[in-house]
């Protein structure tokens, strides 16, 4: 792997009014592979991508992309970056073919085979007008327009929005296809955790505008554990447990999800004197949901239980 990061940010911050949308984001994305940017709605994913592409001025901080300052990306840098926007907006009056022709005029590395292949995969007629396409079809066309120039870095802003499972699979396959060349990098934001699981090598998690995780996917997966505690009666009130993400209480059972599970965590849980304590497997989706759920107060059920004397 090339040691020079393809994206680097340092203290990247953006405010909208008095509200920070992205706060002190320092991130390095390695060259090659697939990097997923995750987070709940409004956590700052799109803002981050817009700042990286010089489409939004950072309030403070800065960064580079392919070695170029994000505040002044030259045309040659843009030629090497493919960008798929979140809403998949295009010119409604253009036909699919015209969209391809328009885009091809700007990108010297345009590969018409890829364009035709992708639109064919999505079942798009070249004569169809953009305004008559469904959201999924439009997403497919946008993907074709983004992939056809064979960019060195592909930035996809929630590419799966509005796609049906078949189209989503096609998208994932496209991403896998693109990363056949080891120096290509895909940086994408998404809510689709199965896709992340399938293709992502690294992830970053934004939570309320702040970067909370940035690591290989496996590291993240291994950091989060779920433990089931059984009690003869009602589970006792939960003490302060290091790394606690979520806890669900049900009749005679307490299910606890923690990050950085270690001896201290285990000792704290054993202090509750459960009749049985066992680690249960957790899917990546559940791990993310636990990770991105509210901290401290945890779940609604637990809050209610904690309110009891």
């Amino acid at each position, binding site marked *: 792997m090339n040691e020079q990061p393809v994206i680097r940010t340092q203290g990247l911050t953006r405010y909208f009014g008095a509200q920070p949308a992205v706060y002190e984001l320092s991130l390095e994305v390695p060259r090659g592979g697939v990097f997923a940017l995750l987070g709940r709605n409004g956590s700052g994913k799109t803002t981050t991508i817009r700042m990286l592409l010089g489409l939004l001025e950072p309030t403070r901080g800065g960064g580079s992309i392919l070695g170029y300052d994000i*505040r002044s990306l030259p045309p040659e840098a843009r030629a090497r970056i493919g960008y798929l926007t979140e809403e998949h907006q295009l010119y409604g009056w253009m036909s699919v073919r015209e969209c391809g022709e328009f885009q091809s005029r700007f990108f010297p590395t345009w590969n018409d085979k890829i364009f035709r292949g992708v639109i064919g995969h999505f079942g798009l007629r070249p004569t169809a007008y953009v305004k008559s396409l469904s959201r999924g079809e439009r997403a497919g066309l946008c993907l074709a327009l983004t992939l056809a120039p064979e960019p060195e870095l592909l930035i996809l802003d929630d590419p799966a929005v509005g796609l049906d499972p078949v189209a989503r699979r096609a998208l994932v396959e496209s991403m896998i296809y693109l990363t056949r060349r080891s120096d290509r990098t895909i940086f994408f934001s998404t809510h689709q955790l199965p896709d992340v699981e399938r293709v992502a090598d690294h992830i970053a998690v934004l939570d309320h505008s*702040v970067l909370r995780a940035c690591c290989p996917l496996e590291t993240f997966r291994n950091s989060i554990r779920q433990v089931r505690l059984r009690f003869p009666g009602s589970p006792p009130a939960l003490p302060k447990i290091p790394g606690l993400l979520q806890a669900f209480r049900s009749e005679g059972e307490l299910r606890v999800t923690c990050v950085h599970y270690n001896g201290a965590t285990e000792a704290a849980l054993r202090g509750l004197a459960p009749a049985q304590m066992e680690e249960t497997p957790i899917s990546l989706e559940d791990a993310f949901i636990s990770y991105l759920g509210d*901290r401290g107060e945890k779940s609604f059920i637990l809050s209610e239980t904690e309110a009891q004397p």
Partner: protein
Amino acid sequence: MKALVRKEMRENVRIAALGLVVHTLMLLSQYRDYVAVPANMSQPLADRGIQWSTAWFCGIFGLVLGWLQVHNERRPDLWAFLIHRPMTRSGIFLGKVIAGLALYALVVGLPLLGFIIWARFPGHVAAPFELAMLQPVAAYLLAGIPYYFAGMLSDLRQARWYASRVLGVGIALAVSLFISLTPEFWQSLLLILVGAGILATAVWGGFQSDGHYRGQPACGKAALTAALIVGCQILAFLGAVLMSNFFLRTAFSGTSSYYAMTTNGIVCKFTQVAGRQVEITDLEGKPLLDQATGKPIEQSEFNSRLAAAITLNVPRAGRLDRGTWMQRDLSLASPWQATQDTLWYYWNRYGRLVGYDVATRRCIGSLGPKGFAADLLGSGDRFSNAERPLGSRALSTATTLFQVDLEKRTIRALFTTKADNPILAHEDVTRSDFGGPHTLVVTKRSAQLLNIEGKPIWQTTYEPAQASYTGFHLFHLEPPDQFALWISPGGPRDEVERERHPGHVVWIAREQGVIRSTDLPALAVPHYAPRPEDRIMFCVMPPALMASIAILHLPLWPAGMPPESLWFSWGSSLLVCLPIGLWLGRRYQFPLAALAGWGVFLLLLGVPGLLTFLSVQEWPAREPCPNCHRPRLVDRPRCDRCGAEWAPPEKTGTEVFAPLLAG
């Protein structure tokens, strides 16, 4: 670039088609108006109608086209799709502008070209034409370009204060207004170029920063500021007018006086003082009494006794007041008179009357001092009328006044003078109360009233005591055959001179000639006291502009600019605008050079400057510094007071970080 230009053309083809239809219909309406009246004495290409319709259409179409060209892509994702391509933002801007201006030229130019071809085709228009007549239309056509950029700017700007987005239109409006006031055509073109240049630079700057002020190159910021200042001045002006409505409007404040002539030949002096009744006195200062009541005469009663006047201005030696180029353009060829089957124009270029046949719409020949000729030039003989002779019965050369008979296409000498006493001006006196059609003729050394046969009714010498005495006012008095000739400073720009030297009056009778004459005493310099609404208006005027008016003695106020205007203007700038600007600059930690620059800007431009300052600036949020707990700007990496950097995000203990790069 080509792909972008093509895309822009295609994208805006609908609005272009709509514009083409509307413009064509407007010109068709001009065409219909012209052909509906065969005896219509106008050149449709130089008509006020086409000038106004072009001005309106070009302004509105330019504005809408520019606005749409940006608005089509103003949705964030489509804007990103546009911007994220391997070309500079300047290139994208240029592509849009090339396409936009090409469409503008097509929509505005194509129907106009068709109209010009129709009008120039022989047999269509019975009126003289020369290329210079198209200059006003060309100027208004070009004046639409600033509107085009103003439209782009209005949609591009990411203004915090939403209403300020349209302020850029102000400079386009100012250009439209001032192009009709410049003395020369090239000055109007320069004005359009400057206006369009400022707006285009502001739009270009906006493209560099997605419409934000922050992040623009310095020239973009300067252009944006310049583009908004005119709009802010208009806004301040409208605000002042609205505020003025809260005050009682007093009809007059200050003092002024002037002379007037009654039907019985008495010159009276009117003196108006604020808060007092108008005082009407004779030249000795005695109040004029109403013979019926024996009391000082009421103004309404006096007004009914004022004598009617015929006015004639002669060119003042050494002063060339050419007016604006648009005024001159309108008199290139003036409608003169019509007969049953012919239309006659005075064509300045040839100095002759040129006739057109109503039926064939073709030129039939011209009339000069030596008579009729079948062509436009004749034998090179020409009249020397400098004034528009619309409806006049007579035309003149330097030494001869001619009467024209258009039915017979002949001319007859009415009055002749010597070469050392040339005719300066003449005027038909057709009012019935003057006792029949006469002609007032002023030569270098005399003024005389001629009857219809050309014989003098009376004559008096013209030996002006003042060089400014170029205005002749002829009064017909009672009993009949009594006249008064009042010679005073002529022209609208001689207001001050009119107070100092109100004029020389000569009383003349038909049989006796000059009965008496007098020089009117100088009038007191009028004093003008600003009213509350005037003071509000002064407060919102840029101090630098007010000072320039005072220094250059621009005649914007009849009685001179009141000194209070400068006090109010500079006062509002110094006491309100500058402190607000400096306070905001300090609060938002402007660099010293920027603070000084804005300080000077606010000082010189006052209220409109402050509005501009508030419109262009973007104010970053402020948060308490984690170190010194005092407010600090979120866009600065360090606190300006304690130098602390921003604290990293608070740890929750759930962070998962691992190195991604090898080594």
